[in-house]
Each structure stands twice: as structure tokens, then as C-alpha cells.
């Protein structure tokens, strides 16, 4: 079985710096991290590989060459190969352009049985890249999965949790599934994989490597949306109350508040 996992390198929100002039986020290697929801998706792929021996996991990322150092971390947990789609002409691409470029790269890389994505990226949160890739590739798509089970070689079961209800889907492969962020946590690396990662360089694709590529669909020019401005949220007004002695009624209020957020 061939599995492809799309993994974006995003800026760690704790280290984020904006460039107000270009209205973009500053990206340098130390500030990057692999998008958490995508790592959830990767964990599902690795679980399938734990059970079925001839599973091959490829990851696909799109971004500048700085992403390579983070891509190595994917080899450290057990991915077989990693691909980076990197081209200056992609700069400024929105979700629509990104989905187009990724779909073209996936076509180029070959026939995958299962394509996994995270539900959304930490820095964009649009959730529209996965369904768009599926549309381009003309394969079924299930969003916000909370669990994936292989039923037989070309058929999987996908669970999606909505509040207290679990929806179960069965789908024939090939299919694209996007995975909820907290549905699984990526495992620890293994020493032998870390040693492999030391000398591993991801395969780098440029747009010239892709077939029948429509350059007018990517980059800032080809995008259908653009960022107007960034507004920093201010939390200074939030008041904190400290209760020295607490009464039953107050406990109930707090309990009510806590359960509402669970």
C-alpha cells in the first residue's frame, strides 16, 4: 500500500514574527515546526505501517528550502521518503493555489492508495486544501477524521466524531482523508531512523518537474484570496478574580464554566 501524507512546515506560533510591510509571516528555519494536525495524520499512516508490512509512506511538503531541516524529523519517526515542492514562483500562494500545486505534485509522484492531510494548518486554518486536492485528483474525500482503520487492502473505515456522535464511513481506495488535530499524537523517534535522517536529503521538486502545469494558477498572482491586514488580538482587558474563601454557589458557577468549555 502506498500512502502519501501532506505535511506543512508552519511558523511556531510562540515564535511568530510578522512583516507588516509585506503582510507576511517571517519564516526562518529555527521558527518552523511541522503542522500538528498533519502529524496526527502521519501517526495514522505509521499505525497502518505497524500492522501491514509492505506499506510505503511518502510525505509531501510545499515551502522554501528552510523546511528541509524539519522534514528530516519525519524520517526520524519512520517515513520512507520525503518530497519538498519548492519554487520561488509558488510564493504568496493561497489555499486554492496550494491545493492545485500539491495535486499536480501528487500526480507526478505516482499512484497513491491513501492520501492523508491534517484538518487545517495552524497558520491558515482554512481547511479547504484537502478537499480541493481530492477534487483535482477526482477521488473521494472525508474530512475531520478521528480514526482510520484498514478493513481490507483497498477499503478503509473512517470515523468522524461530532460532539457525542461518531459517524462511521467505509470508503474504497484511493481516497483522501483529512484528520482532526488531536485525534492522535505523533510517536517518538527511533535511534536507527534518527541515524538514517542524519544523511537524508528530501527529494526536491520544482514546478518545471510537474507535467501540464498551469503557472497562472499559483503564486500571489494566481491566488483567488489575499491577506488584507493582520490585527493583533489583545488580551490585556481580561480580568482575573481570585477567591480567597469560596462558597458553594461560586464553585457551581466555576464548574459550569469549566464544563461548558470541555
Amino acid at each position, binding site marked *: 500500500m502506498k500512502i502519501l501524507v501532506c505535511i506543512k512546515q508552519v511558523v511556531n506560533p510562540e515564535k511568530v514574527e510578522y512583516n507588516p510591510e509585506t503582510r507576511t509571516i517571517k519564516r526562518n528555519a529555527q521558527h518552523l515546526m511541522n503542522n500538528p494536525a498533519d502529524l496526527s495524520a502521519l501517526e495514522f499512516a505509521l499505525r497502518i505501517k505497524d500492522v501491514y508490512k509492505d506499506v510505503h509512506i511518502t510525505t509531501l511538503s510545499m515551502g522554501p528550502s528552510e523546511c528541509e531541516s524539519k522534514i528530516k524529523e519525519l524520517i526520524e519517526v519512520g517515513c520512507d521518503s520525503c518530497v519538498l515542492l519548492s519554487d520561488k514562483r509558488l510564493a504568496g500562494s493561497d489555499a486554492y493555489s496550494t491545493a492545485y500545486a500539491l495535486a499536480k505534485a501528487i500526480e507526478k509522484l505516482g499512484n497513491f492508495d491513501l492520501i492523508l492531510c491534517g484538518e487545517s494548518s495552524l497558520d491558515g486554518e482554512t481547511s479547504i486544501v484537502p478537499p480541493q486536492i481530492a477534487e483535482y485528483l477526482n477521488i473521494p474525500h472525508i474530512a475531520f477524521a478521528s480514526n482510520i482503520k484498514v478493513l481490507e487492502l483497498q477499503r478503509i473505515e473512517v470515523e468522524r466524531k461530532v460532539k457525542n456522535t461518531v459517524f462511521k464511513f467505509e470508503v474504497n481506495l484511493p481516497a483522501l482523508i483529512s484528520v482532526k488535530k488531536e485525534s492522535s499524537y505523533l510517536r*517518538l523517534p*527511533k*535511534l536507527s531512523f534518527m*541515524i538514517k535522517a*542524519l544523511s537524508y536529503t528530501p527529494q526536491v521538486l520544482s514546478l518545471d518537474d510537474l507535467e501540464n502545469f498551469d503557472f497562472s494558477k499559483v503564486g500571489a498572482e494566481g491566488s483567488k484570496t489575499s491577506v488584507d491586514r493582520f490585527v493583533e488580538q489583545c488580551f490585556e482587558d481580561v480580568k482575573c478574580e481570585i477567591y480567597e474563601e469560596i462558597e458553594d454557589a461560586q464553585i457551581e458557577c466555576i464548574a459550569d464554566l469549566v464544563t461548558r468549555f470541555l
Partner: protein
Amino acid sequence: MEYFLSEEQKIIKKLAKRISDEYVSKVAIKYDKEGIFPRDILDLLAYTELTGVYIPKEYGGFGGGVMEMCLVVEELSRNCAGVAVSYAATALGAYPIILYGKEEQKKKYLPKIAKGELIAAFALTEADAGSDVSSIKTTAEKKGDYYILNGSKHWITNGGEADVYVVFAVTDKSKGPRGISAFIVEKEYEGFYCGKKEDKMGIRASSTTELIFEDCKVHKENLLGREGTGFIVAMKTFDRTRPGVAAMAVGIAQGAYEHAIRYAKERVQFGQPLSSFQAIQHMLADMYINIEAARAMLYSTCRMIDSGAKDFSKESSACKVFASDVAMKVTTDAVQIMGGNGYVKDYPVEKMMRDAKVTQIFEGANQIQRNIIASEIIKEY
């Protein structure tokens, strides 16, 4: 400080540090309080393949040496020496097999130890034979194809938890230390029981128990090395594992030092953080100097051993003595810097001071180490 570790050693240290910070730190206080054996952490070490770092490649390990083993022990000890010693005791049980095991013994045990499927232990000490190792009384009497073991062992780390034990017993009483032999004993052998579990001052996550042998039948295939070489097996093993105790000491000291610095910067008295008082600054500086010196000595000793040197008892003992004394001093000072908060169980330094103490006692008390060092240097000059 740049320690000039190889890329692979840096990876081992980084991976062990991650497990220590993300997992060990979360359970250290609970496991210490309740005396819980850290099987879950050992499972993580097995998954990440750190259990096999010091095991030769041909037996499924990573092929590193004492240095690699020490890097893991040091990082685990930064958060919990009890967890670290549970890992290190398997190395103490595995080294006799690496050094003196017959090919079949190595093939049978080492790959499983490397994978973390087997936990090992080393059983030498007895109630009346601590520092005076050669006076052990457990006997191994040969009857046909078997040795019959009788006696008991005290203070055995991983006792009751380990699957394989390297046990030392007297095969010929008339020969003194040359009448001691080493055996591999598996946990389900008939006549082998685990006795009382010790209620210890520190390293409370580790299991320390008595072992009892009542007509325990051990096949002659399980004799390690030749009959009568047990004392040498034990001493040559200690030469390689005492740096492990030093690594534990360096890790404990590093952990306490990090807590003390953070606390000194935050705690305000007389309108200033503690870290602005020179008396405290000098304590912190001394901690740094001593830890770096201990680590430098530890790493050089490991490199010497792994380079294939022949004699290194003196160096191995010296780094154990120095690092354990540093750990005791640094943890005591960390408690002092943290005042009342250092003395209560809400902060980890109280535990670290208790944990540090045992590094001056086990694998040969520091007095015995100084005897070893002295006899070597007097011979040399």
C-alpha cells in the same frame, strides 16, 4: 561546553533528553513517593532503541560502548535517578555476558536485552559480603550437568523485575576469590525466589530486593566464563559500569543545578532576586565548575574505555568518586539555595539530594574506590 561528541552520540543524548524531559519529569515525584517501578519508561527506551546502545551490532544493538550507555543514564538522571538506575542495572547485568559470554549465551540473551524484551540484573552483594566481595557465601555445587545454587543475595537492583540475573556463587571454597563463579539465572528457574523489597532513602522508583536460592538448578551451559573466574568477571564488569554511576551523579547534579538557578532568579528577598547576592552567585559558580569537571572526567574515561584500553580501574574508580562527591555537594547546595522550599517534597531537589547519596555507596563505596586508586598509583610509581 563543547564535548566533541560524535553526531551519533549527540543524537543519543538528544533522544534520551527528550524522553527525560517529556516523560520522566512527569512521573519522577509520583514514582518516588509510591515506589513505582518505571516499566513504562523502560518500554519507551526500548521503543526508541536506547536499550541497545551499548550492545554490539552483531547481537542486535547499536554497537556503542560505555559512553553511549552513560549519555542515556546522565540524561535520565537529570529528572529521576531512580528511573536511570533501573535502566543502568540492565547494563550491569548485560556487561558480564558481553565480556565473558559464550557465543550461544550472547546469541540467546543480548538481542533480547538490546530490544528491551529482557531486563537484567547483577547479583553479587550478600548480607555479610558488601565491600568485602570475596567473602560471599552463596554456593554452587556441581551435580552432573547442573550446578545447585544455595544462599541469598542482598540489595539487588531490578530484583523481582528482571528476567535474567548474573549471579555470583562459590564453586570451590578452598580457593578464596578464585573459587567464585558467575552464572546466568532466569527468573522462572525452580528454587529461585525474590525476597524482601527494600524501603530506600532515594532512587525509590528502582526496585532493590533480596534474592533467595534454595536448591536452584542451573544448567552448566549457564556458567559464565570458566569456573573460578567469577571474581574477575565482577571486577572487569565494574570497571565498565562505574562510569555509569558517575553519569548518574553528573545527571543528578545537573538537574539540581538547573532548578537552583531558576529558583535563584525568581525568588526575591531584601528586594532583589537571590541570584544578585554574591554568596549565592559563588555557590552557583562552584556548582558549574564541579559539574563540568566531573563530566569532563566521565567522558574522557568513557573514551579511554571504548578505545580498547586494557587497564582503566583507576580512571573508572576516580570518575565515580569525583562525580558522586560532586552530586552530593551540588544537591546539598541546591537545597540550601532553595531554603525551606528546598527541604520539602514540592520541589524536586529534596529528592535529588536523597538520590545523590547512593552514588557514593553502591558499585563499591567511595572508600573502596579510593583503595583501588591508591593501590594502582602506588604500583605505578
